[in-house]
């Protein structure tokens, strides 16, 4: 398969994630959409690595780091979302608007 196919797949996945971030109102779902975007990144990286850099594994290594960091990110974000839920009984980002102006 040509690299372009993976790039298109990755871009499509990225855009789906992007749409999710923009359209969803629940903090948890936004987080999941961001995960989609990160997976798009991983596909892109691994495909590129497999195509052009078959000895050094740079792409794969980056992907592993991305997965790790993303996991940590989700843990952190969920902790904060939990905090919000405890205080406000909602995780809807529309309703989290104490500060404006």
């Amino acid at each position, binding site marked *: 398969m040509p690299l372009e196919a993976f790039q298109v797949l990755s871009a499509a996945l990225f855009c789906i994630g*992007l749409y999710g*971030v*923009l*359209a*969803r*109102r629940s903090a948890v779902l*936004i987080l999941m959409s961001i995960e989609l975007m990160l997976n798009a990144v991983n596909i892109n990286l691994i495909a590129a690595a497999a195509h052009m850099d078959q000895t050094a594994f740079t792409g794969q290594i980056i992907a592993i780091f991305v997965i790790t960091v993303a996991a940590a990110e989700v843990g952190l974000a969920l902790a904060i979302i939990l905090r919000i839920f405890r205080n*406000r009984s909602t995780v809807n*980002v*529309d*309703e*989290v*608007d*104490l*500060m*404006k*102006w």
Partner: protein
Amino acid sequence: MGGGLDRPSMDLAELAWLIPSLSFVAFFLIVLFGRFLPGQGAFVAILAIAAGFAMFWVVLGGFLGAECPDSFGQKTCTFNREWFTAGSVVLSWGIIIDPLTVVMLGLVTLVALMVQVYSLGYMHGESRFGWYFAVHALFVASMLALVLADNFLLLYVVWELVGVCSYLLIGFWYERRSAAEAAKKAFITTRIGDVGLLLGILLLFKEVGTFDMSTTFAAVSAGEIGEGTLTAAALLLFLGAMGKSAQFPFHVWLPDAMEGPTPVSALIHAATMVVAGVYLVARAFPIFEAAPDALIVVAAIGLITALMGATMALVVTDLKRILAYSTISHLGLMMLSLGAFGYTAAIFHHLAHGFSKALLFLGAGSVMHSMNNETDINKMGGLRRVMPITTLTFTVGALSLAGIPIFAGFWSKDEVLLAVLDHKNYLLAFALIAAFLSAMYMARALYVVFYGELKAENNHVHESPWVMLAPMAVLAVLAVIFGFVAIRITEAGGIGTFLFFNYPHGFEFNTGLGVGSIILAVGAFVLGWYIYMARRISLGPWKVRFAAAIRVVGNKYYLDDLYQWGVDRVVMAFSRFVALFDRVVINDKAVNGPGESVRRSGLNLRYHVTGRMYNYAMGMAVGAVAIAILWWVLTTST
């Protein structure tokens, strides 16, 4: 680096750096230890400036004896030390001493000394007495450093500092709202000009790679910079000068600056601040000379300012404002003179005007001091009976400013007119009108305030203390004799043989022009006598006939209103609009009563408006796409 010799044989002139330093030190001494000193440390500032004035003579002697190379025809000593090197940029702090600097040093130190002595009496009993003298010292020190600076960087630093000090002094009585507003206005207005100045400096830096003045000027006269660039640079520098020297359309801050203590006005009008702009143009004259288009702008702005200031001075009834508009008018004349290659004339007029205007402000302060801070001239009248010395000195100042022969202002004004006749003769008629108006409003102020009948409620008015009168006397003497000094300063001739640009010239007297200007000045006083004293000529019908014009002038040509409208409606509206756009907010409550309404909405969360994250994310996404598109367009198009 630097154009001059680094170590000339005569070092006395180099001591000039001490003059501002003394006042800087005085500032810190008073701020840090003032409360422990008698009189809150005021004497420290006065001692510093007195020592500075003494140093001025040493520097003058040193300069006359020094052997320095010529720059643009004038002996120019530069003393600088490399201070720091950053890459290809070498910064050196140094001083430049040429006739221009020397006369400015003399003017600033003398006037500042007189004003500070006077302030001892005028500001007596003020709670922030020490602070007043501290800022005063800093003000003077920055101005002195400004005239000594040999590179644009240092010049810009002290230029800004002058602005800060004026902010502090104009707003000295900051409890008064009007004073605080006036201080803000002066600060912001002049800083608009400073934008131009800084840009001009940066533009010159880009061209020659140094901030050093001598090097820059040398590059200019060697023709290394294109004429377009030079014109742009000159105009940008002039923008800075317009702000500081209250040239149209930036003159609006100067009348309001009257909210400061009167001695501060004297200082601002005669020795610091407004002087800086004229000095800057004179200092950067090599650049302006090489950009004749810019000089035309200078002359035009100067002329507009001169006429505008003079007309407004005719209609206001506030004594200090009359003087303020008079300053604006005369600053315009100086700029006009510079625009007409009248380098010597401009500086000469500047000196003569400085002494006269300081004298007039001190006189006005003396009147206000005795009359409970009254400034409306219609409530005065006949004060010569109760304040004879103030009357005498004020009269001298007024006559000098009006250009009555033998007084200093006459000679200098004549030089200005001569310069205009020589180089921009099509403007001469306007210049003569400005000169006539100048005599007219001085006559008005003089007659209405000091002559005529003493009003009954003013019977208790008494003469000011000697500590205020002595400085006025000194300045009055100068206003009388300075003209003679200047027209025959050396064996060779007048001030034109000492202070000149490119080539010296003796004092000239064009008989026709001289007689004409005498007739105009004296005529104005005679006319004023008929109008304001003898009341043979009634202004009534004229006021009716020209009601509209008078209203326009009386409302300061509506410029203040225009600016206020601009700030309120345009800048603030734009700011709010951007803020609105920024948050995609429709909630007016959140705009107007921010903290409260937000807090009230609290956990209720009924306002479905902002703070919504997907708005932010959307903004970012749109921004990202915009950047990608922009990038795409730019990279493919090239």
